[in-house]
């Protein structure tokens, strides 16, 4: 067979060019190329306990999923709507406290206290953030940063009722490590799918439009405030849900749930992974949580190294790791021989 001219072609280009939006795949390689990154990570997450059954790493991975959900839900606000919230911990805290009060004080069973806690937490959080919506840009960020700090103050001031810094404890914790791992991980996967559905639909289009140009959206006859409130609530439901889960997992909830560090870690994870990508924030959460725990072996220089790594990644990959990896992945090439 006569050899033709050799040409190098990017794998994704070939697929797209042939199909426009419908995928008509021509080889297994193409199938793997398309499906691999979408299916392998969830499978890895689901079989993780079969590979590593150490409860410590299961706990760490649960934390990662916890932060993952929180970061993804933050991404709807910060990434897609342009409401860069510095107080996302507010939802985590409200969710945790709501579930804790329902379960520990009123004996609401766990399978009700968590979803109810999520809804109440999201509602309360939306209520608190609603006045902050009047502010824009950096002012919204800073105003939202203040909100959870006020809650910490309120909890300290009402120590007799809300338990002050000793928090609320005694919640039901009926699951073991593996079960908790799956609860957190499946919550992450489900949140991911739901939020993807939300932001890549018409609703998400309006959110992105609000981020790009708010006056134009107003002039288009769309009630921006209403959309922002709904978005706050949707985002809050997920964050509150994991807050409630965490409250039951630790059988403890305290003012640190509202901590600045929670809010800021979430932003750090999202930025590291790449905002407005949904997968990115979850990726960032896994990287940073595992990194923090992995660095434990270094004892006292641990946080220093953590900070330095974070700085380096953010400076040299400012667009986020996900977009970077995506780009690398898209450069997979093949040689095409034209006859």
């Amino acid at each position, binding site marked *: 067979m006569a050899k033709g001219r050799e040409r190098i072609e990017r794998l994704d280009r070939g697929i797209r060019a042939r199909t426009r939006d419908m995928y008509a795949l021509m080889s297994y390689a193409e199938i793997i190329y398309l499906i691999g990154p979408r299916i392998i990570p969830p499978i890895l997450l689901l079989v993780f306990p079969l590979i590593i059954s150490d409860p410590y790493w299961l706990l760490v991975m649960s934390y990662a999923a916890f932060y993952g959900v929180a970061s993804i839900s933050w991404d709807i606000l910060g990434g897609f709507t342009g409401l860069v919230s510095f107080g996302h911990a507010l939802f985590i805290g409200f969710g945790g406290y709501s579930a804790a009060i329902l379960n520990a004080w009123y004996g609401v069973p766990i399978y009700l206290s968590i979803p109810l806690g999520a809804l109440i937490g999201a509602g309360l959080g939306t209520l608190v953030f609603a006045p902050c919506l009047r502010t824009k840009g950096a002012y919204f960020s800073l105003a939202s940063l203040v909100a959870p700090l006020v809650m910490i103050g309120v909890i300290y001031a009402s120590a007799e009722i809300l338990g002050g810094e*000793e928090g609320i404890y005694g919640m039901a914790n009926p699951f073991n490590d593996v079960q908790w791992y799956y609860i957190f991980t499946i919550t992450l996967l489900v949140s991911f799918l739901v939020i993807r559905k939300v932001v890549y639909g018409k609703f998400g289009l309006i959110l992105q439009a609000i981020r790009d140009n708010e006056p134009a959206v107003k002039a288009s006859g769309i009630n921006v405030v209403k959309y922002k409130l709904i978005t706050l609530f949707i985002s809050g439901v997920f964050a509150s849900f994991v807050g409630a889960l965490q409250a039951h997992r630790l059988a403890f909830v305290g003012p640190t749930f509202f901590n*600045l560090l929670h809010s800021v870690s979430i932003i750090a994870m999202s930025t590291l992974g790449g905002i407005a990508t949904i997968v990115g924030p979850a990726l960032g959460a896994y990287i940073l949580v595992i990194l923090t725990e992995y660095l434990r072996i270094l004892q006292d220089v641990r946080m220093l190294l953590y900070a330095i790594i974070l700085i380096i990644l953010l400076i040299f990959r400012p667009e986020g790791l996900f977009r970077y990896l995506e780009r690398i992945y898209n450069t997979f090439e093949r040689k*095409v021989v034209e006859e």
Partner: protein
Amino acid sequence: MTSNYRKFGRKRGVSRTTALIAAIVVIIIVVGAAYYFFMAQPEVVEEIRIGIAGPLEYIHGIGHMRGAEMAAEEINANGGVIINGVRHEVKLFFEDTREADPTIPVEEGVAAITRLVTVSKVHAIIGGFRSDVVLAMQEEAVSRKVPFIVAGASANAITDRVAEDYDKYKYTFRVTPTNSTTLAKAYLEFYKYVKAEYGLTKVYILAEDALWTRLMVDNVLLPYLPLLGFEIVGGPTYVPLGARDMSSEMTDIINSGAELIAHIFSGDVGIVFTKYWSDMKVPALPLGINVYSQLDIYWEQTEGKANYETTMTDIGSINTPIGEEFFNAYVEKYGESPVYTAPATYIAVYLIVEAIKKAQSLEADDIVAALEEIGRKGIMGDELAPLGNKMLYKFTKNHDIQWGIDDPNKGVILILQQWQDGERIAVWPPAAATGTLKLPER
């Protein structure tokens, strides 16, 4: 059409920054792996593994660490522990909880406990500092059925839970400080003493804003001080943890005409208090708790403004006739006086070892039973730590350490310490006193 696949593009290659990041990641992994394989020694059967979980970067956690180290070295040097004829050595595992920083969430502490239990496979855990973190750590420790000796947090809830649900929480013990109620009672003893000796009766209550201080003020100071013949002329005033300015509080104290300031500080607010108290020439004597003034450097830190400042202190963190062996050994080894977590952790290691020796077992339930026994029989024998010789260590039925009021033979005693011209002097109880209380001349 034939095709084959290449990983990276033609000209793309690997950019310099990518290489840099990759290098960093590789270094981290290599260092980590090396650490795992070379530093973390292979498991030896003849080990009593004790985990220390505390804020290891702060003085309290350093106290945990050093106290444990001292005890472990002593025990191992004396031939370790013989269990069923096999010699065991104490091996320590440290995990940082970062809890001294009030912004750190509790998850960090829980992860530390889990790691100690499941990775280091410890037989018992000692540590804890911040009440909320300790409560969350306690939950984790008992759910994994590992004895957890709290050496640093005073929340009543920690031991109240043992009473509420013994079967679940029996793995928890506390060596020091005793719970808020006991602290408050000891506090009242100081006041009885000061009233009897010096006739001071007008009290102003000033505390940092925390649940334990509120409980102490509400449940003990406010009801009982008047019963003891004191007049509460002002307060209670609660100072937030991050306060950096206390001028208004001091003015209020001066105006109230108080002779005594009942103060309760565990954070560095205490330092701010001392400075403002001295700067504004407040005539009243602070009598109570100011944890930072237990440190040697406090005098220097406050440029001597700490003169006359008093605080409640534990045996072992001040040089008294009772804890002097421990104190001197510690100072010789580390060059500075111990913080209260150090003697607590020190004695906790001894208690665990003693319990294991007694039970001849490393099973959690056996250790717990033996720890309960230790107290009841009062068998703190001569062979135990130098610190234990002169003071009874015994757990109450709630697994709290028993308080001996002013008699070290009945239980742990708490000391009233005063700064006098650069020296920390124990002024009460008489059994441990090295000097007498002095009043500020203002």
